[in-house]
């Protein structure tokens, strides 16, 4: 069982990304997932969380993730917005972060005592491939580096989910996967 928590900002598609991750593991890896979104009453601009539990058997747990195996940070500014992405993390927790540079990654590692980090400039990947600052597909590509899901499964799920812009989103996921570094 892998417990995953997404941290994003309203409008970045973190809740949608959680649903697509569920599609990727369920349809394209024959596994199981539950997703529980949690966002404030505000929409764009407010912190957004999504809780995902993935397993190779049906998932009984249907609640929030308190001790994540993986955290996915959709926006590098969250550290300055009073959002504690390190909550419940141990040094074994993997962080996947949308980061523009290594310095910001190091700040997160130091602040939250994280050791295993995959970083990716998902914003750039999204702008380059989709032409929009919506990093969710790219972040799913970066997440595939952690091994919880295969990049092929993510590509398929992303492409299916976004209709007319499916291919562009699939490209963003692949591009991000290939440009993710162990930080």
């Amino acid at each position, binding site marked *: 069982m892998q417990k995953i928590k997404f941290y994003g900002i309203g409008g970045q598609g973190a809740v949608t990304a959680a649903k697509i991750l569920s599609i990727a593991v*369920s349809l394209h890896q024959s596994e199981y997932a539950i997703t529980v*979104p*949690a966002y404030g*009453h505000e929409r764009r601009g407010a912190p957004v969380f999504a809780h995902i539990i993935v397993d190779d058997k049906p998932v009984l747990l249907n609640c*929030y993730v308190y001790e994540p195996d993986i955290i996915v940070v959709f926006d590098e500014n969250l550290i300055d917005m009073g959002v504690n992405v390190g909550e419940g993390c141990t040094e074994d927790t993997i962080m996947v972060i949308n980061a523009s540079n290594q310095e910001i990654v190091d700040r997160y590692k130091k602040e939250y005592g994280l050791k295993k980090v995959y970083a990716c400039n998902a914003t750039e990947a999204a702008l380059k491939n989709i032409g929009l600052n919506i990093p969710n597909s790219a972040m799913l590509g970066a997440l595939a580096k952690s091994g919880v899901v295969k990049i092929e499964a993510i590509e398929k799920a992303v492409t299916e989910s976004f209709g007319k812009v499916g291919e562009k989103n699939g490209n963003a996921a692949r591009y991000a996967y290939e440009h993710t570094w162990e930080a």
Partner: protein
Amino acid sequence: MAIKMFDGNGAAVEAIRLARPGVIAAYPITPQSSIAEHLADEVAEGKINAEYIRVESEHSAMSMAVGAQLTGVRVATATASVGLALMHEVCGVAAGCRVPIVMPVVNRSLVAPWSLWCDHSDTMAERDTGWLQFYCSTVQEILDLQLCAYRISEHENVMTPSMVCFDGFYLSHSMQRVDTPSDEDAWDFVKPYVRKNMYLDTKDVMFINDLCPTVEHTEMKYQQKVGFDEAAKVAKEVFAEYEERFGRKLQAVETYCLEDAEVAVVTMGSMSGTGKYVVNQLREQGIKAGLLRICMFRPFPAEEIKEALKNIPIIGVVDRSSGLGAAQGPVCSEVKAALSGMDNKVFGYVGGIAGRDISDGSFRKIFGELLDIHAGKADAVTTWFDVRPDAMDMREVETNVNV
């Protein structure tokens, strides 16, 4: 059969599509909105051959639904929270006129204070309105129970509408794999809607829902009561047929590790899986814990519950609504009544209000307390198990401080 991906609202829309409604009237409300929206999409794209009537409120939505179904078509609507509260009057009309509407209700807290998040206060407030109530624990079950609800509600001995209740966000927005029957197989099971008894027809006019004199009114209620009695039997048959056709077991009451249990919790809705997870953990430690999930709350399966719990000494019932002013939450009241005269000790818990998460930690705390009682180390539980200690200091208003 095919594995498809749906969130809870998507599964409800799929079940509605499979049941081929002729009229849809729904008013969007969080967290039900995507049901109203996707039904509109399905009609626009020709996937559902229905008249989609835009309405200005839930009161109108249910009024449309009642009128339309009385003409002899299956109708669809859906709601949540205060939307259901606004429907309350017309829900009684649907029930009393024996219009077997099947309605998904996405559970969300009632006012005040305002909340968008999950609890059962909305449907608990409707528990005596004359509707059958089913509570889902997974997205799969939303599809399964809704398809069954058409058959149960529309049965000539039942003729009683159904609420298919599922938890806002925990199920409505959880994307899960759903084993989905083909259009043909689902239609073969659900069958076309056939109006029975009262109907609206401009060529054959009759009064419906007129002022009923006292000398007949009790009898009308008695007919409804008999409908509920029959619903319990019909549900059993329909669930059995569904399992035979589609391979998934549905039951009014689900038991989990209860045979030799010394302590057990009673749950309803999306918290149930988390409860089972904790039962598994406790069993691995050699602790005899169990769980009973109520899937059909109306008609209340008192006999099944009594049979399943009779030998379990310590029981905790988790209510996801406050039951203000009552001796305990509404589910606990009913479980206690079902077990009256037995020797078990039944303790009520209230929590998960307005989206407060009922976690594995919550169940570990509850089981811990029940085990202490079983061991004779305690004689009371923390009824409001997740209330903050500073509850009485919050939002205190200091009036007239500047006067």
